[in-house]
């Protein structure tokens, strides 16, 4: 029923089309009892669900009850109204991209990256920068036309920025994996402040990545782009190339997307994402 222009109303679907079925689970800080069960039901009702069924009340502790609840929401979404602009840039393959860089920039692109703050989850940044790459996709180090310097884990902003400056890097790649109480955002901001302090903010491309990073947040924080789970090095390589071209006034600016930058350079495949999320 999806006629462009028209509304495309959708609702959650359990047993029958549009029945609005949703499953919930949560803990309430009260012991199991009929009263607790009633409380769980009212949580669901307050969320606007009808046909509320508290299918499980489990003793998660003497003062805690765990609930599994089913109910039906009556909301509708107009699927056509959901905005996810996809950038039109064609994604280059490995050789093609190296060739394009040679042709259009005439030099190697220098990128410096690290997992910053106290975070030592390097597998993410390694997947992007090191030879090996990720999911069969070569890492930046492997590209003849990239010079990739990976500083590894627990790198303080000062050091990362200084290094980037020293190498007069085209792009800085920042990874954060630990997100508890939004420490990833704090660290990301600290990094950009440092970049301003050392005066490389304007002339450098800043990329932010991690399992809980998305393009939108990254932009809000002041980065050029954000890369979430399932990112391939080639997505990043393409993005940097286009962004540099654009800074040279040689390419259409990619529209901002509300999402991980798989789709900032390629229309993305949900499946893939589903798999790696």
């Amino acid at each position, binding site marked *: 029923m999806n006629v462009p222009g028209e509304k495309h109303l959708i609702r959650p679907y*359990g*047993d*029958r089309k549009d029945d609005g*079925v949703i499953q919930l689970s949560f803990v309430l800080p009260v012991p199991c009892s009929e009263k607790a069960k009633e409380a769980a039901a009212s949580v669901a009702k307050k969320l606007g669900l009808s046909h509320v069924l*508290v*299918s499980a009340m489990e003793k998660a502790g003497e003062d805690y009850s765990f609930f*599994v609840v089913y109910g039906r929401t009556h909301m509708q979404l107009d699927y056509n109204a959901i905005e996810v602009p996809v950038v039109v840039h064609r994604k280059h393959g490995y050789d093609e991209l190296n060739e394009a860089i040679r042709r259009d920039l005439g030099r190697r692109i220098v990128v410096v990256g690290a997992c910053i703050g106290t975070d030592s989850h390097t597998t993410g940044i390694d997947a992007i920068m090191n030879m090996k790459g990720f999911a069969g996709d070569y890492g930046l180090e492997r590209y003849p036309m990239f010079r990739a310097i990976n500083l590894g884990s627990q790198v303080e902003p000062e050091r990362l920025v200084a290094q980037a400056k020293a190498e007069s890097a085209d792009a800085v790649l920042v990874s954060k994996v630990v997100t508890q109480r939004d420490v990833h955002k704090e660290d990301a901001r600290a990094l950009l402040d440092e970049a301003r302090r050392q005066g490389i903010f304007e002339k450098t491309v800043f990329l932010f990545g991690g399992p809980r990073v998305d393009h939108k947040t990254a932009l809000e924080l002041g980065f050029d782009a954000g890369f979430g789970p399932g990112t391939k090095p080639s997505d990043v390589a393409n993005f940097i190339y286009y962004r540099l071209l654009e800074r040279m006034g040689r390419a259409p600016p990619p529209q901002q997307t509300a999402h991980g930058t798989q789709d900032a350079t390629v229309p993305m495949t949900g499946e893939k994402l589903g798999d790696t999320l």
Partner: protein
Amino acid sequence: MAQLFVDADKIARARDLARSAARGVQAFIDRHTTVSIERTVLRLLGISGAGSRGAPLANLMVDRLLAAGVLQQGAAYWLGRALRASPGKDPLQAIERVAAHPEKLPPLSPAEHEQLKEEMRAEARSAVRELQGRIEQRKELKRSLGVGSFEGAPWKYVIVATGNIHDDVEQAKAAAQQGADVIAVIRSTAQSLLDYVPHGATTEGFGGTYATQENFRIMREALDAESRRLGRYVHLTNYSSGLCMPEIAFMAAYERLDMLLNDAMYGILFRDINMRRTFCDQYFSRRICAFAEIIINTGEDNYITTADADEAAHTVIASQLINETFARLAGMGDELIGFGHSFEIDPAREDTLLREFAMAMMVRKLFPKSPIKYMPPTKHKEGDIFFSHAYDVMADLVAITTRQGIQLLGMMTEAMHNPFLMDRYVALKSAAYVYRAARHLGDEIVFNPDGIVARRQREVFDKALALLEEVAKDGMMAAIGKARFGDTARNPEGGKGLEGVVERAPGYFNPFLEILEAKA
């Protein structure tokens, strides 16, 4: 891998007992027919429509013949007479005519009589030929596509049960796309007690969707398309069970279904259908399945959802041996008999995984050529879907390790509702993981021949043997009368549908039975 720790003579002995128990019943079957057998004959002869108020023509005709007290001749005979008496008339009116005053019919000369039967036999042969053709199409498509996730993996069997055939199709397609090998459309609760098969596409059922020939067609058509797209054959199954076993068997064969739930005793025990009726009906329905190469699934799993799974385990084995005998008597090859059992032991107990392994291996080995149908935990499922899911995963492990043939995947919401789309997705994904992770586990491990598992097998089989001794001594019907199966007592005169059982007249005529019995 599966190991059997029961000694061979005991197994042979048990089979003999099951055979002799069944023999008595078979003698009865051979002397009787039922309204639903005769309706099936008429359907085979092309009587497919429904009357004004939705009553199938076959029912209207057979009811007349029964009322007129002439059914024992066989519906095929009377249809022949009727058409000859009023040529060109519409069959129902013709039947009504003859049924109104059968005594008034001009007697036939032996020659005419023979000729009439020959005509009907010719009709029957061409009907059978057409049916054969449709069955070949089904087999052809299956041959041309892959089957199952990998060699030796159980077929992943999931249920759709929205009550609305069109929602069922949506959900069946989604399930197929996520790896389901078999789609079962569960019937509406009421249907097994209906003494007719509803007509046309249906959109309202409770706990399931009505089994109708049109619904069969719609779903099979959708699955054919899906199978082709996926390059993997997706089977369809339904229930040849209740008061219309043979009719549904015929419709299923005609609409190219692959399997049917069909049990010699389920209707008697769980639906209080008269035992004589069920025994006669299961025979003809299985004759059709044998001909159509439809895999039947027996219903022993039901015993242990009612009685305690650990205590009643032996009734499962005994019943399977009985189902085996009846199926063979109906001309079915072992490869068509999907023996049912399940992973139902109370998870609150200890070593349940070992006890489930014991049963799963024993059933697997007792019927080496048959596609065992393995059912998931249901009775002890909880509203805690996370626990229920973990519980199902253990059943997946036993299924792949012991190489069950067909696994009905457990649903984490079993305790609440008919499976939702997401429930099926979750089950399919985890089953695929477990099959993959444990693919060769069965070839790797050997159980201790004097361990818990081995001892458990012997204990269960000994009890099954004792039960069969008793059944053979008292006879099937008496044993059922003593609640030996499924904790439920039924007597030969009780239950629904007895009025539809008729002793065959000496001249009883059923051209299809002639063909099917000849074939075997």
